[in-house]
């Protein structure tokens, strides 16, 4: 990764004035990702999952969210990482997809993640295009890379609609990225 240049005063001012978007940062394995905060309906602990037959492996099944049945996807597996056991810290991020579901509400899907960090405001100027990613399979899901100054982290911004595209649940097996061999 090319390190960022030291910002000069003019740049800092510009940065302060620009519109910022809020993101929820989360962790998968040792990697850091973020999703648009506006799309996050809620964050819940891991629930009992009822498996669905004939689904791609990353689609773990459905859960009962206060009377509403929503599908659950393991984000690690979706991005091709090896599966892990769920711990007490494992969370489910309930995301709103575009398009209408039942009862005039959005289509909801839950994504299983290892850790949820916090909500950050990220300005457009700090986002670099994802072309630098070496793993091309994941490139389709990442809209950009953002640098978080304080932690010195680079966060991959995820494209929720591409990641959780409902059509992937049509029962075809082939869509999940095969696990990386360590």
């Amino acid at each position, binding site marked *: 990764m090319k390190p960022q240049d030291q910002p000069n005063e003019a740049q800092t001012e510009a940065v302060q004035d620009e519109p910022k978007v809020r993101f929820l940062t989360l962790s998968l394995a040792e990697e850091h990702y973020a999703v648009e905060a506006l799309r996050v309906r809620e964050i819940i602990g891991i629930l*009992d999952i*009822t*498996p*669905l*037959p*004939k*689904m791609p492996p990353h*689609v773990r099944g*459905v*859960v*009962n969210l*206060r*009377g*509403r*049945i*929503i*599908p659950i996807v393991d984000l690690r597996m979706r991005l091709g990482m090896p599966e892990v056991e769920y711990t007490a810290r494992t969370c489910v991020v309930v995301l709103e*997809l575009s398009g209408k*579901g*039942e*009862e005039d509400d959005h*289509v*909801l*899907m839950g994504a299983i993640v290892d850790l949820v960090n916090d909500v950050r405001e990220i300005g457009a100027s700090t986002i670099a295009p994802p072309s630098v990613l070496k793993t091309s399979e994941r490139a389709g899901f990442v809209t950009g890379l953002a640098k978080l100054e304080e932690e010195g982290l680079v966060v991959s911004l995820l494209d929720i609609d591409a990641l959780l595209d*409902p059509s992937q*649940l*049509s*029962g075809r097996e082939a869509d999940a990225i095969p696990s990386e061999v360590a």
Partner: protein
Amino acid sequence: MDLRPIFDNVSKSIAFLDETDSQSLADLRTALAELRAGAESRALSGLITACDRGLAALEDDDGDLTCVLGEIAAYGAEVLEALELDRAAESVPVPGSAASPAVDEGPEAELLALFIGSANDNLADLEEALLELENTSEEPDELLAQVKRSLHTIKGECGVIPLPEAARLCHAAEDLLDNGAQSGGGVPIPVLLEVCDWLSSYSHQLASGDTASVPPHAELLDQIKAAGSADAPSKPAVPAPVEAPSSAPACSGERIAFSQEILEDEILPDFIGEAREHIEASEAALLELEQSPEDTELINAIFRAFHTIKGVAGYLNLKPMVDLAHTAETLMDQLRKGEATCGKRHLDLIFTSCDVMGALVSALEGGEGPSVAAHSRLVASLEREIAGEAPVGVDDVSSDMSSMTSGNHRRLLEILIDQGLLTEKVGQVLLERQATMTRPKHIGELALDTGLLTPANIEAALEIQKHEEQNGGPPPRPEPAPEIPAVEPAAPVAVQPEAPEVLRPAPAPEPIVEAIPKAQPQAEQTQDKPAEQAAARKTRIARTIKVNTGRLDALVDLVGELVIAQQMVYQDPALETLASERLTRNLAQVAKITRDMHEAAMSLRMVTLKPTFQKMARLVRDVSLKAGKGVDLVLTGEDTELDRNVVEEISDPMVHLIRNAIDHGLETPSERAAAGKSENGRVELRASHQGGAIVIEIIDDGRGLSRDKILGKALEKGCLPPDAVPEELSDSQVWDLIFQPGFSTAASVSDISGRGVGMDVVRRNIEKMRGKVEISSQAGKGSIFTLRLPLTLAIIDGMVVRVGDQRYVLPTLSIEQSFRPKAEQMHGVMNEDEVVKVRDMLLPIHRLRDLFEQADGEVDPVQGILIVLEDNGERCCFMVDEILGQQQIVIKSLGEAGAGMSGISGGAILGDGRIALIVDVDGLVTRTTQAAV
């Protein structure tokens, strides 16, 4: 022209200006433009400039609008003040502009001013009187006199000045009134209002000093002449020199439509809902009225319905609706006052009014409105009926020969046709010819013109007609007793259309003494019934309140979730450790209340079948008329309740089945007579609850399904599976064939039915609701179509089963039986598929474990449970580990995840919060039985 009111308008617009509100800006713009025009006409150049500045400032975003407008307001005020101080002479305002020509005409100007003042007063009176005349029918004579007085006065004064053109106009209007009074027609109010407007604008023009020209009035004169002549349509053409108010419908040559402004009105949705209710109520009342034309309560109800529609429509400025409602209401008024007796013509007209009104409501909803022609024809027909004129020709809107029997006597044509002197076709041609004539000839004359008859024929027919009128009607056709089933909460609706028997022998030309009253004992019952029914109706009208259905659904959903949450608490194992009696008691109380609440919420969604049945009653009437078959319709169980959504979905299938029953099932009257059946066919609609489902039966006593015909058609269309042996097919399998797409045994396709796209759609729709269609039929006797539907779409009765760690739900409706097989019953076939012997049937076994690719679960059937499932005659066995119980399941959609899954139709949340997958039995059974070779 008096500038003061215009300037006041401008000031007001400036004061109320909201720069962010485009409407307010538009208002100001208009006001300024008016002021400018006024200034122009008085050649007040300073004011013109000021207005221009104002208008420019409005267009320009940047400028300081308030500042400019303030200046204009101040300047304008000064100008007007100066004007008003010298008003009589209309002198020039301070900033200097050309003198107005009126100054020079001293004495004439004074006379003019007097005239203008007096004319304005008279015109005001005239307009008021005209408007009152239009809206009420009270004291028309007094109002008419007022109108004449005003017109006369204005005319006289016009003569003095002189203002010859205006005088001429007034004179023509007076003539129109006098002629109208003589011929007994109504007062042509719109034309007179036009005259009023013209006079008013003329007087304004005079007041502004322009005496040189006279506004164009030639067209107006023509209108007056047209209105005065005999073949005037009751509504003269409306030239629109000024932009028509937005309420006038756009007559784009074809259909009536309403302006965008109206469609966006806030109270419109409420009005639409109410209007539909009123129309439905009227139709229901009309159907009953057909049976008992004397029931004034019904007439009143219809009158009130149209009156109410008229009221709100008037408020919303919906002119076509107001016109129609007004004429319809007037007709009903005549009836309820006893000024006319309710005859078939009246009923037909009001039926048609309901239809057209319904179409107008559709136009309000954004759909297609009625054609302009149909609307005005209907209104014209209504007015003719009100005026007591004989109907000119046949309305295209209601149909042809069947409307020939009027109130008391047959029409001349019908008599001639009955006598065999004319054929139906010729009669039709004559009627059409009469309708297109501007001065319609008597139908007898037209008949003579054809040369098919002699004058003697016509005279004889006229004699008969006269006799019939005196004696209360033609000889009655023998009517079968309307069947009244033994047990029934609601009175049957017997619909007997008067499709004329055209080939009946001619009645004897001697006077027929008395129309024979219905001798059947049912007649007395029927007479008592109206009174009873009226009383019953009054008590049955419960108080209701309108609720937004979205809120209702949200409430029902919440209650559903409450039930689940409550169950989860109740079943929590931690409770058992607490062992508190008080806690147990309280929890039981909560459970009970939740159950009751659940029931109450479920019942909120329930509606009765009554409106649907009434819709069917109307449909039967129309279809039977068209098909030329008499139909007795019996409705049973209309108080049966269904979930609202189900009711909506079954409407179309029912319509289709009923049409089939009448069109194909019932024989023609002659066929029925030959078969020894009653002349009128009998169609029964029966609804009931049976075993947790709703059962709707459509029963006809027609010719029944023909096995041979169906098999023949199936062979022809290739609907039969290739290896099927026709003779070996059971009856129900043969009847099943009619559900194949593209199948139809109707020899000819009418617009009612026969296109072959119906039955498969019907079945698909019913099955979409998890219902079933069953047919049973007997040749020569009739058929029964049975629709079986779940009580609600969202809840099913399900059997919860376990396979490994997973839970599934099987709809109880599909389950025939369940058992644990013994080894002796099992048989292996080809070492692969297993079959089990059940009651002399060998059924294949399918493990749910395999179907849904589970890793756990029983493998050996003897260790598990076999459940026999049935779908449209096909059977198979599913194997599960254990049956957990039977309960009512709320179906939850699996959303996107579920869309692609075959074999699963939804999810359910069990009492312990776990999710069970609802098995799509029909899909699975078909798939597995087809897959099995």
